């Protein structure tokens, strides 16, 4: 299950992505993110709710990041979940996003 929830934080649009961002939901994610490509475009993508992510999911995130950069309205990925950190690390794409990742002690 994948969903996107819009939220406001400090007057900025934050999109909270949650659930499984995988090949099965990649299309949905793309469509969902594309909706925010206009003036309402968000400044942050909150990834704390991502339980599972695969290469397709990472690609969607990368696409969104690049699209936003292209529109001169950059977005920042925040609150990476463990699954996201793991995937970005394995694919060695962390630096492509350039977003600071807060490393949460694994022991919680």
């Amino acid at each position, binding site marked *: 299950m994948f969903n996107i929830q819009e939220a406001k934080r400090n007057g900025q649009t934050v999109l909270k992505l949650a659930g499984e961002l995988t090949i099965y939901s990649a299309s949905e994610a*793309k469509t969902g993110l594309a909706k925010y490509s206009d003036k309402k475009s968000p400044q942050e993508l909150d990834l704390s709710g991502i339980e599972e992510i695969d290469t397709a999911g990472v690609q969607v995130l990368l696409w969104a990041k690049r699209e936003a950069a292209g529109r001169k309205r950059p977005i920042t990925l925040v609150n990476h979940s463990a699954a996201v950190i793991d995937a970005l690390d*394995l*694919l060695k794409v962390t630096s492509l996003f350039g977003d600071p990742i807060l490393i949460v002690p694994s022991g919680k």
Partner: protein
Amino acid sequence: MDLDKAKQTFIIEAQELLGAMEEALLTVEGQADQAEAVNAMFRAVHTIKGSAGLFGLDGIVHFSHTVESVMDRVRSHQLSLSSALVSLVLECHDHLSQMIADLQGGDPEPPASREVGQGLVNRLLPFLEGKGVEAGSAAPVVSRQTSKVPESEQGSWHISARFGADVLRNGMDPLSFIRFLGTLGTIIHMAPFVDGLPGGEAFDPETCYYGFELDLETDADRQTIEDVFEFVREDSRIRIIPPHSKVEEYIQLIRDLPEEERLLGETLVAGGSITAKDLEECLQRQKQESYEGGSVQGRLLGTILIEDQAVPPPVVAAALDKQKKFQERQAHELKVVKVQADKLDKLVDLVGELVIAGATAKVLAGQTRDDRMMESTAIINNLVEAIRDTALGLRMVQIGETFNRFRRIVRDVSKELGKSIDLEIHGAETELDKSIVEKLSDPLMHIVRNSIDHGIEPLEIRKARGKPDAGTLSLNASHESGSILIEVSDDGGGLNRSKILAKAMERGLISAGSAPSDQEVCNLIFEPGFSTADSVSNLSGRGVGMDVVRRNIDELRGNIEIETEEGLGTNIRIRLPLTLAIIDGFRVGVNHASYVVPLDMVIECLDLGPFLESEENHLINLRGEVLPFLRLREVFRINEEPPQRERVVVVQYGETRAGLVVDKLLGEFQAVIKPLGGLFRQIRGIGGSTILGSGEVALILDVPQLVQLATEQKHAPLKRLPALPVIG
């Protein structure tokens, strides 16, 4: 498949391999570069093991596995090839030969053989220590591709992956590949590749745009790494480049591959430097390119592999080298056809008949006085002659193989006697008739053993005589006017004249007080039961042997002479006819009968008159050289009146010349030698018979005996030959 036939092939192959192995074993000591010989031994054992496995010959497989393991350690320089090890492996070789012989005899693995085998295996085991190989539990097939390589050879593999667009859709995830690679080893460096990811609407979230370059440090082999990508290979571009240390290893592997016809790609796959998948893909690409380029052939496979970086150039070069070597070898092998000896004999027999029939046709054609007929028979005769030479040539084998057998004997015997002996072989490429070679082996063996045992002195005596510590035994073969000369010489003590004389008198072979010539003394050792050895060893000295040697040589129509110098050495010379079946002859007439002299021995023909030196002493003067002559008329007791002009045929045997006085010179003639019946064996001067074109029988003269007779008669009154029975 006819299993019996296949087994026969295996036996022959195994025997050949064992021959090669023995030769390698005997030459390996003292060689600076032993790699070639060691490889040869390893290959022999390895191949025998493999083939034996096919036939379920567990005994041979088991035994050869242990030997192979030891050889493998030698090959990889974990073990040095000491003299003791060579001797042990030689014993193993003998045991393997025995096992093969038992197999041929239809009784594979008699219990006694198994015991010998187990004994040898037990002695081999110490050489395997530290290797951790359970030699007792033989694994019939050792996979060349080991899944683990030694720690030291680790290096980092470079993997370049560009995944196909549909990879994600097909349920595959590059993530999991990377995760799995992580379990094989350590990813020491990795760079993602996502440049292909498009912006805007063009982005298809279900298409894979991801790729990576990574360096993986692992001890897994290529196949293992490749298997990771097994399901995505089809539409992805995966390149796996081996670490540098692997390059060496691949080259080595490729060189060590068994020699077979292989395509370049196959060689690389077998060597493990590419996998079958890589090859398939490159071949596909090659096809594709040639199609697109419209050329007949696209880039060469090697080029594609190198350019696409699948294989480092040196590896391709090694594989190509291997391919070329094999092609050369195969080209050579194709030139050799194995033929059953009896088929060859049959052919030679038939050619013999053809020669006789051809001669008859020639005579008849001559009688017709029809030019065209004569011309055509002349052509046929030329062809027959060519066929004869070729057919006889087929039976010619190099004597080298026989000589090489002595390396082993010299080695074994000299070890047993505690003497150090070098064997020198010259003229191994000299060819002679196979049947002669076979019959020569035994006499040579006796002579060689005698030389080692009695000839070459023990070390102390050699030192005292100021000779080098190691004795030298040399085997020489060469051609000499129509015969072949085989010499066995040693630098030993020589024959002891006084000792032989004393022994001969004791046995009553010569009368006391007589003064025989050196040659006569030497010949005494050929008398049956003659031995001067102070002690009887199990090698020689029983006085059985030299008489057998002479008998064997006589049977071959050859002769044997000894030249010896006390304290300096002995040289034994054996002269043998080149072939036994058909000779080029020179026909001469005495009275109404024809005789044939082997043409090779004829030097020239003269009129007797002008050259006669002394009728009384039977001497002619050939331009200053005085030669003895023999009247065949007298030798064969033909009492008719001689013609006005007598002719002399000057013949040479060995280094001696003599003249044979005849009535007529009748020209060259191809003589098919027919053996004389037992009744005529004792007649000296006659070597055989042949059939002339006219159907008449002609006798072939035994020139060596006649020359000897002529020489003897120079000193003594003519000895009459026994009366010749009438033939035909």
